[in-house]
């Protein structure tokens, strides 16, 4: 399949690197509902890829397929060029794919360190939790992301603001030498200042060489942090752009009226609106 009509070479921040994560012809149906149809999608190291589309376009479904929550019906996922099968969240994590879910999935009664290491706690001798080591790593990770507003990493996350919680969830995702970080609507519930915090964080992830996928309904945010954007419409990839080459109006047009190729059985007819 072609990468459609978008001028996708010479990525300014990706340095033209090969994609770390690539989906080819991925389809997913829930019974009669075709949630994804022949979707191609790729993201390279250092790239911040926005994934946009109307409600029900299939964005969350695409993410869940990558995260191993839904098995794909058709197509193939490649990681660092190799075809991979992802059967559950643990498989995805092993590859270095981390997802920040919209509802964050933090345990309110646990502190910042405990949440960041949840399910992957480190132990020293006698199967004793290595609290010192974990606290140090968590502090370092937060510092490397310039998260400075959290008073103590030993306070429970219940006492954190929305933006701080989001920062913790993101830090949790990047701590594991992850290569791909996927964020589902990370700013949806945040105020202006906190949105800024999180967007800065996302941009820094890209600068650090991670491949970042960010789902958002807010085109303003997309233009602010992303360098590439993929538009889904009714489960199909209808457009890919470099953010530098496109206007908000063009993206809105693609979201609402992007030309579909949906004639099942007649694949490879990818069309792009411009």
């Amino acid at each position, binding site marked *: 399949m072609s990468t459609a009509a978008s001028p996708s070479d010479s990525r300014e921040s990706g340095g033209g690197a090969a994609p770390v994560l690539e989906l080819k012809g991925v389809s997913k149906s829930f019974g009669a509902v075709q949630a994804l149809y022949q979707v191609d999608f790729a993201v390279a190291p250092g790239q911040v890829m926005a994934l946009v589309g109307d409600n029900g376009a299939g964005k969350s479904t695409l993410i869940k397929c990558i995260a191993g929550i839904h098995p794909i019906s058709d197509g193939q996922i490649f990681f660092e060029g190799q075809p991979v099968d992802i059967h559950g*969240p*643990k498989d995805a*994590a092993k590859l270095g794919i981390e997802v920040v*879910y919209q509802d*964050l*999935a*933090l*345990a*309110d*009664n*646990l502190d910042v360190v*405990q949440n960041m290491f*949840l*399910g*992957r*706690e480190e*132990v020293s001798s006698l*199967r*004793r*939790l290595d*609290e*010192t*080591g974990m*606290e*140090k790593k968590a*502090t*370092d990770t*937060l*510092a490397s992301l*310039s998260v*400075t*507003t*959290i*008073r*103590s*990493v030993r306070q*429970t996350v*219940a*006492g954190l603001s929305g933006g701080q919680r989001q920062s913790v969830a993101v830090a949790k995702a990047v701590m594991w030498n992850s290569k791909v970080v996927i964020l589902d609507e990370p700013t949806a519930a945040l105020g202006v200042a906190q949105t800024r915090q999180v967007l800065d964080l996302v941009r820094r992830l890209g600068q650090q060489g991670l491949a970042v996928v960010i789902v958002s309904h807010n085109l303003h945010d997309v233009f602010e942090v992303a360098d590439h954007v993929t538009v889904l419409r009714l489960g199909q990839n209808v457009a890919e752009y470099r953010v530098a080459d496109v206007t908000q109006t063009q993206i809105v047009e693609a979201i609402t009226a992007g030309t579909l190729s949906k004639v099942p059985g007649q694949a490879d007819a990818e069309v792009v609106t411009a």
Partner: protein
Amino acid sequence: MSATAPANTPSPAAATSAASDGLGDHARRWWADVRAGDLGSLPIFVGLIIIAIVFQSQNDRFLTSGNFVNLIVQAAAFIAIGMGIVFVLLLGEIDLSVGYVSGVAGSLTALLLLEDGASLPAGVAIAAALALGAAIGTLHGVLITKVGIPSFVVTLAGLIAWNGVVLLLIADRGTIVLQNDLVVGFSNDFLADGTAWIVAVAAAAIYAALLLNERRVRSAANLPTGPMSLTALRIATFAVILFAVVAIANQDRGIPFVLVVLAVLFLGWTFVLNRTRFGRHVYAVGGNAEAARRAGIDVDRVKIAVFAICSMMAALGGIILASRLRSVDPGAGGGQILLYSIAAAVIGGTSLFGGRGNIKSAVLGALVIASIDNGLGLLGLSSGTKFVVTGLVLLAAVTVDSVSRKGRAQSGRA
């Protein structure tokens, strides 16, 4: 943040600044937490002091060394069973079957020891009863997680069924008198005075070594350690309480053997809850099961293990009770065992809503309940009065929990 403060210096110094705080800063922060609804063990200590003052003013036998030793022995079974209940409450679940599970374990132990029957060694009989307890809990856990029946229903069925099993086991024999010295000695033997002192001094020294070592490791890793005076205060408090207990108990019969067993269990389970992966996962499942699942934690396995632990501790409680009474009768496991054990955990400060609590709460709560029971007994008041007062104390404890939850919600810490 006000304009006068240079907002958020871009260094991780904010996290390390706590190292230079003094004792006063810690006290202030603690008080702020209390006001925000994080009460910790504060209400229970206040409660114990009030209880001591009230009963002592009514009957000066309450605060005697003899009664102190009685109180420990009376509370022992509730402490053991309450420790198991704490695990279940941390998940936000409940176990109503612990009373009769303890009865089943007591009956089995008695039967296995019968001199005209199996006549097994004490160690084997106790191990068998504990294993049966763990098996019962595993069964409960599997029904709850794999079949999907609420724990309330599964353990309510257990409450009825295990009562039946007690009757099936020993109803035709009536009361079985325990004759094994070791099992009877479990609740009725005491440490020699000298031994008790050696154990106490060793325990205090180990506690001090652990705290100081933790400080050393943390400061080596450049992490905040809190003021040295706070560490010293904690060590001193621990030692003073421990030595006071030994000194008072030694004036009478001494430290009951069962107290040593409970102390070991207390340390062991506290270690499991606070310092192991499993314990961390228990808190996580109780706090947000979905988050735990997405973090790759096997939620069902954690729950099954917790119900197994709970029933095993209930079994131990049953053995302690049988040992104290030197016999088992068909009423074993009934009476106040279930309600007092759950009440102990809750009064001690473990939340019914899951995710908050610790093993210490079972110990403190059982002491409160045993004190009320014991004190009202000394005053010669009827069982009726005892139950009304205990019920009111439980209500007060749950009210404190609910109100402090609201406080946390208002201060954004719920």
